[in-house]
């Protein structure tokens, strides 16, 4: 399925735009209100990571389908410093900034699938999917 929308992330208001676009698609796909909230919250966490830790990047929002099941996929990409220890970054409470350290691990818990590719100097790409029940 084609990418529904791409949003460049350069400032805080871009994260707000991502939240709106993600919610609109989640509503269209008829996700429950609880699921919509989880997906939008995960999008907000990952969007902020891209902005703050990745020094900006972009987000693609798309609907996906597998075995007749609909889902929503969000991909966040940046060319920032990258993450040396992904396991550590996923740990609750670990933070390199001044956040609570729940962004990555929290987003992972809120979504059905979570994939991260990152290494120092090569930026970070996080892709998450939430499938409809």
């Amino acid at each position, binding site marked *: 399925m084609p990418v529904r929308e791409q949003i460049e992330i350069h400032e*805080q*208001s871009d*994260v*707000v735009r991502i*939240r*709106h676009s993600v*919610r609109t698609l989640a509503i269209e796909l008829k996700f429950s*209100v*609880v699921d*919509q*909230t*989880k997906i*939008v*919250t995960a999008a*907000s*966490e990952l969007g*902020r990571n891209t902005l703050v830790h990745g020094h900006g990047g972009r987000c693609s929002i798309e609907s996906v389908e597998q075995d007749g099941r609909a889902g929503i996929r969000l991909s966040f990409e940046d060319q920032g410093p990258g993450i040396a220890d992904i396991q550590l970054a996923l740990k*609750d409470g670990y933070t390199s900034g001044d*956040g*609570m350290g*729940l*962004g990555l*691990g*929290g987003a992972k*818990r*809120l979504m059905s699938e979570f994939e991260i590719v990152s290494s120092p100097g090569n930026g970070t790409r996080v892709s998450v999917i939430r499938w409809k029940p």
Partner: protein
Amino acid sequence: MDRIPILRMGKFLLVTIQVDMHDRLAMQLQDDLTTQIAKLQARGVLIDITSLEIVDSFMGRMLVNIALMAKVLDAQTVLVGMKPAVAITLVELGLSLPGIRTALNVDRGMALLQASLSEETGAGEADDAGS
């Protein structure tokens, strides 16, 4: 610059968050509220998040910070109007809101603030067992 309005009701401050906050706006609210608590010698802060569709870790931290700063300034914080979906998501996200009292709606939140204030004045110098 955008600001979230803070209303004064007697000894309490009332904030209704009605916009989808970007992070700077959340920080601004934290600063404004802390300043106003000290300036007006407020004894309680009621934050109404009925219109908030999500609370992510940044907003959660902002709410916790407000409650902590308010406490240091001798004011109680009550958070009201959290949507059930937001509550479920917060728990799954792994976010607890230490130090924040919650109530279902503004009426109950105000009652909670009133009660803790009168309990305090009624009990004179007695220890505050409520928190």
